[in-house]
C-alpha cells in the first residue's frame, strides 16, 4: 500500500502550519529522511538513483544524505509516491521535448495549499491588508496543467477583495480591463495586488510606455512577479522592472517581490523586501520547510557565498515527489544567508557553430 503512516503527513502538515519561524535542524532532517525512505520504496527511479549512488534507506541520516533528483528526470520518469488518481501539472517545456510532470494527490494538493498560505501571508501579505488581486495569467480552467495558475487562484480565493480576477483570456491580455482597474484603484483607493510572469510585466510596461500611460495605484498596492526574463522576452534588468512598477503604477520597490517557483517543487521562495519593509538588500527567503543550497554543478558540494553555482532545493512540502531537487538555475549564496538567482548564464554565446539543443528544438 502506497499511503505512508498517517503520522508523517500529519506531522509535516502541522509543522508547516506552525508558521515561518526557523525549525530546529533535527526536525527538518528527521522529516526529510523519513519522507525519502518512503520514496525509496515507492518511487522506483528514486530508488535506482539511490542504488547508483550506493545510498540505502538506513544510511540516510540527514537531508544531505538524500540523492538530488535532477529536474530533467521529471520529464523522463514518473516520480510520484502518492495516491491515485493524481492531479498533474506540467512544465512549459521547450517545444519538441516532453514536458516535466509533477503529480499530486488530493492530500498533496492540500499540503501545497498550506505551504502557499503560510508563505504568502508572511512574504506577500505581512500587513494583512485586503487587496484586489489582479492576475496577469490565464485562469486555472484555461491552464489546468499550470502550477502557477493553481497557486495564484488560491491567493485570489483566499485573500482577494471582490473584483479579483485573472486577466488573460483566449484573446490575450485584457488590457482595457486592466487599465480600467488601475484607474479604479487610483480613484476608489482600493489597493491592488498584481501577480504575473515577469516578462508579462515587461510587455505591459512597454505597451503603457508607448501610450504614455501611468497611474498612481492606491496606497497598499503591491506586485509579485514570477519567473525570469529568459527566452520569452528580451532580457530586462530587475531594477528596470522595479523602476517601471514605481513610475507607471506608483508601487515602490519594497512592495515588489519576485518569486522563485518551479513545477517540480511545491513551495516557493519570495524576495524578502515586503516582509522587511525596505527595498534593499534584496534576496530570496526559504520558508522553514525548505532549504536552497548553492552547489558546484558537478560535485554538488556547497559553494562559499558569492560564487555562482547550481541551485539545489530541498522542499518537504514536495512530500509525494522527490524532496531534494537539482535545478539547472544558477545563483549565489549571500553573506546574510539568503540567496539570489543569476540572469541567464552567458555561456550560450560561446558554443561555437555546432548545433545546440535549444537551436534545434526552436525550429
Amino acid at each position, binding site marked *: 500500500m502506497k499511503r505512508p503512516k498517517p503520522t508523517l503527513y500529519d506531522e509535516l502538515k502541522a509543522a508547516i502550519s506552525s508558521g515561518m519561524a526557523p525549525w530546529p535542524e533535527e526536525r527538518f532532517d528527521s522529516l526529510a529522511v523519513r519522507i525519502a525512505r518512503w520514496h525509496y520504496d515507492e518511487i*522506483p*527511479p528514486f530508488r*535506482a*538513483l539511490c*542504488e*547508483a*549512488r550506493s545510498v540505502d534507506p538506513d544510511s540516510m541520516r540527514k537531508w544531505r544524505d538524500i540523492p*538530488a*533528483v*535532477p*529536474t*530533467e*528526470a521529471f520529464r*523522463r*520518469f514518473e516520480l510520484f509516491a502518492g495516491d491515485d488518481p493524481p492531479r498533474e501539472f506540467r512544465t512549459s517545456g521547450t517545444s519538441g521535448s516532453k514536458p516535466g510532470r509533477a503529480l499530486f494527490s488530493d492530500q498533496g494538493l492540500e499540503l501545497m495549499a498550506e505551504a502557499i498560505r503560510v508563505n504568502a501571508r508572511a512574504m506577500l501579505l505581512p500587513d494583512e491588508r485586503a487587496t484586489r488581486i489582479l492576475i496577469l495569467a490565464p485562469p486555472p480552467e484555461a491552464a489546468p496543467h499550470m502550477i502557477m495558475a493553481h497557486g495564484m487562484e488560491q491567493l485570489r480565493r483566499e485573500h482577494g477583495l471582490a473584483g479579483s480576477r485573472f486577466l488573460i483570456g483566449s484573446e490575450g491580455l485584457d488590457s482595457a480591463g486592466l487599465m480600467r482597474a488601475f484607474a479604479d484603484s487610483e480613484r476608489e483607493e482600493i489597493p491592488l495586488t498584481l501577480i504575473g510572469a515577469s516578462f508579462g510585466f515587461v510587455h505591459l510596461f512597454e505597451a503603457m510606455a508607448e501610450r504614455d500611460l501611468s497611474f498612481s495605484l492606491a496606497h497598499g498596492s503591491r506586485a509579485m512577479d514570477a519567473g525570469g526574463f529568459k527566452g520569452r522576452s528580451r532580457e530586462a534588468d530587475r531594477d528596470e522592472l522595479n523602476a517601471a512598477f514605481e513610475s507607471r503604477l506608483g508601487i515602490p520597490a519594497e512592495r515588489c517581490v519576485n518569486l522563485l517557483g518551479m513545477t517540480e517543487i511545491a513551495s516557493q521562495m519570495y524576495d524578502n523586501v515586503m516582509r522587511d519593509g525596505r527595498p534593499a538588500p534584496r534576496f530570496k527567503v526559504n520558508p522553514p520547510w525548505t532549504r536552497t543550497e548553492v552547489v*558546484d*554543478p*558537478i*560535485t*554538488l558540494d556547497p559553494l562559499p557565498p558569492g560564487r*555562482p*553555482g*547550481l541551485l539545489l532545493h530541498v522542499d518537504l512540502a514536495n512530500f509525494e515527489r522527490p524532496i531534494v531537487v*537539482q*535545478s*539547472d*538555475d*544558477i545563483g549565489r549564496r549571500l553573506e546574510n544567508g539568503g540567496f539570489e538567482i543569476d540572469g*541567464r*548564464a*552567458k*555561456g*550560450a*554565446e*560561446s*558554443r*561555437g*557553430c*555546432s*548545433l*545546440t*539543443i535549444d*537551436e*534545434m528544438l*526552436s*525550429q
Partner: protein
Amino acid sequence: MTKGWWLPAELRHLVDDVRPRRHATPEHGDFDVEMPCITSDALAEAARALRGRAERELQRRPIAEIVDRLDETAIRWLDPSDPHRRTAIETIPRITGHSPEMVALAIELEQRSSRGDHLLACLRSEVGDPAALDRFRSSGHLAPGGENRAFGPGLVGGVFSANIPALPHLTIMRALLVKSACLGRSSAGEPAFLPLYLRSLEEIDADLASCLGVLWWEREAETHWTSFFDETDFVVAYGGTQAERELRARMPAGLPLLFHGHRLGVSIVGVPEDAESRDDLAARLAYDATVFDQHACLSPHVVLALGSFDACAELGVDVGRQMERWREELPPRVLEPALAAALAQLRGVAEISEALGSPTRLLTPTDRSSAWTILVEDVDGLPPSPLDRFLRIVPHESINAVLERLRPARRWLQNVAIELGANEDDAAALREALARLGATRICPPGQMATPSMMWHHDGRACVGAMVRWCDREGSAP
C-alpha cells in the same frame, strides 16, 4: 591590454576611445580586452575608406601576389616561435576557457589549410581561372572568342560569432581572394584573434592589411548596424538561429548574406569485433569529439553505431579511455556553471536510467569531472549534444535505421564521418543517401576537424558566391 579591434593606421583616429571588457573563466578569473568606442558615422567612414583602399590597392595587384602574402602569413602562424601566435595562445584561453593546447592546435589546423596552394585550389574550384580576377581571360565555356572577368563585391561585412578559436580569418581570406575589402564585427565572446592576425598581415604587407578592419559595437546599437549594412556589399555572418533572425531583420532588402548557422555533425560506424580495430576507431572518434572542444559545425554530436547495445558499450569504454588520453594532451575547457548544470542534468538522468536497467551506459572520468562524457544509449530521436566533449553512442540494427534517425535533422546536417568496415558497397550507398539527405562533407572518423579550403562550407561555394561576372560575348561583325 589585449586589443579586441584593429584598423589600418590611417583610420585608427576614427576610434574615439577604448574601454576594457571583462571576461571571466572559471580557470583564469577576470581578464580585460580593449574594445573600441566608435560612432556610427565613423564606422560608415571606416567602411567607405576600406572599400576605397581595396579599389586602389587590390584591383591593381595580381591575385597570385595576394595569395602569396596570405601564404606568408600562414607560414608565420605555423611557426611556434611567432610572437602573435604566442600571444594568441596565451590570451584566447583567458577569454574562452579553451586550454592553451587546444588553441595551439586550432591555430595549427586552421593555418595549415590557409596555405597558398589551398587558396589557389579553392579559387580554381569556385571561380575557375583565378586570373579572371585580374583581367579579361578567354573562357573555355563561352563561344569562341568569349572572355570572362570576375569581381568581388567591394566590401565584405563579416559578423563573427565566438566560434572556434582562430577561425575568423577565413572570412578575411575569402574576401581578399576576390580582391575585396573586409570589415568585421568581432564577437564579444572572442575578439582577440583577428586583431593579432591582422597585425601579422600588416607586418608582411601593410598595403594589403590597409583594406581590412575589425571593430565591435553593441548588439543593440541600431544605428551602427545601419551604417554597417549601408556600406557593405556582401555580408558573411556566423551565429545561431536568433542571431540570424536579428541580422535579417536589420539588413536592407537585397544585400546578399551568406549565413553560417548552427550545424550538426555525426559519425556513422560499424563496431569492429576485434579489440585492436575497435581501439583504433575509438581513438579517432574521441579525437573528433575533442578538437575545438566539439564547438565546430563539423564536430560530431553522436556516434550512430551499427551493432548491439553491448558492442556499443564496449566501444564506449574504448572511446572513454581515448577521451581520457586526449584530456591530458588537449585539456578541455572548464565549463561555466550554467553549462556544468546542464551537463549534470543529463548525467543525472542517465544515471537513473542505467540503474533502472534501461539500455543506457554512462561513462565519465573516474573523478566524475566534466572533462568528457560518453553516453551509450538506445535513445529516441537525435538529441544534440550539449557539446564540450559529450558524445552519445547509439546502437542501430541497420543503415536504414540510421538514415531514418537522421532524416528529421536533415536541414542541419553538415559533416558525417563514416567507417563501416569491409563493406564498400554499403559505404557507397550510405554516402549517396547522406549526400541526398543534406550532408555537406563526408570523411573518415578522425578527420572531421580538418576540412580543406576547397570544402564547400555549408554546401555553398562561399568564394564563388561573392563573385560578380562580366562576360564578353559575340564577335565583331
